[in-house]
């Protein structure tokens, strides 16, 4: 059996399972914070609408959460099943990070989820709020450890290779590897931003349809105000992550931008808005370029030097150049769309206020929010494609090649698992969309009253 075939199958399977999984934690992370905020507002103001909001969004949360949890399981085990070489080589740091994620984050989330979802009548309000907070903290801590582990694969640090294994000598340096702060913050804010536009977009839909518009203006307003902070922050973080890529992973940077020739000293590198990079030819088939902009983006100077792909040995260049090139541009375009939508909406709120009628008279603006619902997910997928395909042909950048990390398996086994995942994920996606649609159509229950007093467990009859 050919080893490359098995490696490619394992790569395809990991891509499938990771790209499918990441769709769900994104909303878990953001929505869990939204739930913390509305529960806090309810406790502070006593406005029952906030309680009803909490109950309404929690239904979407639990549907989303359950898919996120179970689709995360395969990823943890795939490192061993399909990437045994990698696990042996890098377990000292990578496995430890996953161990911390399980103990510190995942367990926290799961340990308080039941109370948050079903405990309204069973625990005092303060305990319930604490449980909601712990679910949110757990979800974000989980993202911290996972993206930290991934960052280490991008910019490994903190140790050296001894007898074919990476031995960590400085855990602090491994954890805070050069990519870590950018990688973690960019992903975490991506989750907040996606969730922000999901909450805003769903709320806009109800306002547009004139279903409980006053109720949903509350969540819409919160989403818009959050976007005022988040949308520009994400552009800043994206720019910083990009500069870090050019600094630490020049091959990835050049591949993303279709940049072939290192610009000579004193002459700025031009940036291709659109192009078709051709790996065989070692050049772009065609390109629309703006002078000096790539130097500006990569180095913050007009004529900073940016290494071109031709100065990188062919076997170290990332594959699938057009995929990288366009995935990156789509992600950036979505980030800019979010910023523009936020700016126009803020302007409108400034002029017209928060009354639903003022917004219903601008249906195009509300529709702009509706369209934003799927876009955050698209941007997250594009971002991960850029990050992971751009890391190739390395599994751990500059240290371990992908082919060296793959398990030796019968190809039939991987074909079997790949087929199973494909089938199962199609079923999950369809079922989730049906149920989410039903949730959306049904709308909130505006007759729900908060529990007056929690019944302590010891007072109940067993």
């Amino acid at each position, binding site marked *: 059996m050919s080893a490359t075939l098995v490696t490619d199958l394992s790569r395809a399977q990991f891509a499938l399972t990771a790209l499918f999984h990441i769709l769900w934690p994104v909303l878990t992370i953001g929505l869990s914070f939204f739930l913390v905020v509305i529960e806090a507002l309810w406790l502070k103001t006593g406005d029952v609408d906030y309680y009803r909001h909490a109950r309404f969004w929690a239904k979407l949360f639990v*549907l989303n*959460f*359950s*898919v996120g*949890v*179970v689709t995360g*399981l395969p990823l*943890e*085990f795939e*490192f*061993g*099943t399909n990437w*045994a070489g990698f*696990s042996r080589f890098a*377990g*000292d*740091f*990578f*496995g*430890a*990070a*996953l*161990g*911390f*994620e*399980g*103990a*510190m984050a*995942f*367990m926290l989330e*799961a*340990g308080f*989820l*039941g*109370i948050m*979802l*079903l*405990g309204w*009548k*069973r*625990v005092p309000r303060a305990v319930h709020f604490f449980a909601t907070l712990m679910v949110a903290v757990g979800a974000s801590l989980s993202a911290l450890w996972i993206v930290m582990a991934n960052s280490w694969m991008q910019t490994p640090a903190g140790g050296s290779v001894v007898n074919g*294994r990476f031995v*960590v*000598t400085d*855990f602090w340096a491994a954890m805070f590897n050069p990519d870590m702060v950018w990688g973690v913050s960019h992903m975490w804010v991506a989750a907040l931003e996606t969730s922000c536009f999901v909450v805003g977009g769903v709320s806009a839909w109800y306002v547009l349809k004139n279903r409980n518009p006053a109720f949903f203006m509350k969540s819409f307003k919160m989403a818009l105000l959050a976007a005022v902070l988040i949308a520009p922050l994400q552009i800043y973080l994206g720019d910083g992550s990009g500069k870090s890529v050019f600094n630490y992973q020049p091959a990835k940077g050049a591949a993303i931008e279709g940049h072939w020739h290192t610009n000579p000293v004193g002459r700025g590198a031009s940036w291709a808005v659109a192009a078709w990079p051709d790996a065989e030819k070692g050049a772009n088939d065609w390109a629309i370029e703006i002078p000096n902009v790539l130097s500006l983006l990569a180095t913050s100077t007009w004529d900073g030097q940016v290494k071109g792909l031709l100065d990188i040995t062919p076997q170290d260049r990332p594959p699938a150049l057009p995929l990288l090139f366009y995935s990156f541009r789509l992600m950036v375009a979505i980030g800019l769309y979010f910023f523009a939508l936020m700016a126009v909406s803020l302007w409108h709120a400034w002029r017209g206020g928060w009354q639903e009628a003022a917004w219903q008279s601008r249906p195009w603006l509300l529709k702009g929010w509706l369209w934003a619902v799927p876009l955050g997910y698209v941007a997250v997928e594009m971002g991960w494609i850029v990050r992971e395909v751009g890391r190739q042909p390395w599994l751990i950048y500059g240290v371990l090649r992908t082919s060296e990390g793959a*398990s*030796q*398996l019968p190809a*039939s*086994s991987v074909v*079997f*698992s790949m087929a*199973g995942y494909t089938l*199962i994920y199609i079923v999950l996606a369809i*079922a989730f969309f049906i*149920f989410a649609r039903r949730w959306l159509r049904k709308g909130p229950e505006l007759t*729900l009253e908060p*529990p007056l007093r929690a019944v302590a*467990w010891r007072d109940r009859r*067993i």
Partner: protein
Amino acid sequence: MDVQSFLVAFWIGVAGLSLLLYVVLDGFDLGVGILSLVACDEDRRGLMMASLSSVWDANETWLVLLGGVLFGAFPPVYAALMQGLYIPVTVMLFALIMRGVAFEFSHASGRKWLWNLTFGLGSLGAASSQGMILGALIQGWPTLAGNYVGSGWHWFTPFSLLTALGVVLGYALMGTGWLILKSTGEMQDRAYRRGFLLLLGTLATGVLVLALTPLHNAHIASRWTGSAALPYALAGGVAIFAALLTMWAYLKRYEYWPFFGTLLLFVASFIGLVASLYPYAIIPALTWSAGAASSGTQLFMLVGILPLIPIMLFYNGYQYLVFSGKVDGAAYGDDEAEAASGASR
């Protein structure tokens, strides 16, 4: 004991504790799922699932912790186990995925029976693959530098089919114990009757597995008959005591002891088995100490994770306490669950 062997022993302990907690907690959870396949109607199935609604996710999380601990503290063991058990691990994951989403989807769906059936079949699938994995671990497999060499089917033997049957019956037995705790009336009555039969079945299968194990594993055979056989006899003694206690509890229809007696039976068998396999992670070639991470990593993880273990146990226990008591649809959970169970009625 030098630092290195202390760290290895400590992490074997944590991995063992995670596995044990996973087996008993998700065990009753999967067991209730298996039992739901033979429940007489959707109402009762809904009630069975409601008894798990606050805990299934946390129960399954012990598996995530186990994976993380193995990967971090014993990377070569983790790699060799996962690569060598590719198909049963994958099937287990498929089953756990379908079971987990079916649990939540069944609330949202108009076709409850479909998702409830998926939940039951997923539970059965996960339990049987875990049983297969157990059989494979007792038998061991040939490895070359940690890599399994072969066609990928070494785990599929008559012996592993037998262990799979044992695990399915044992989980279902824990499930009846749980249902006795959480239900009343006719449903509880049925759990008592089913549980007693399951206990007999589990014990019969267990004895058979025990009798065949030395034939399949020379290392265990030498352990059980060697000069240091006392601890195994002790574990066996506790298991026999637990079996008699459980049987007594079922006959007398006590409420707590069917569950906790079964728990004790599982704990004793588990400790006996793990001790028998030690020092091997995979018989005949890979030991725990050979498959350990560097002492630096194990120390780093110890400092970070040790203080978390009591905290984890505390809040998991608290969640069980909050949702203690009988489940009868109307009084259990909150109005959300009430609405759901009311609709299914």
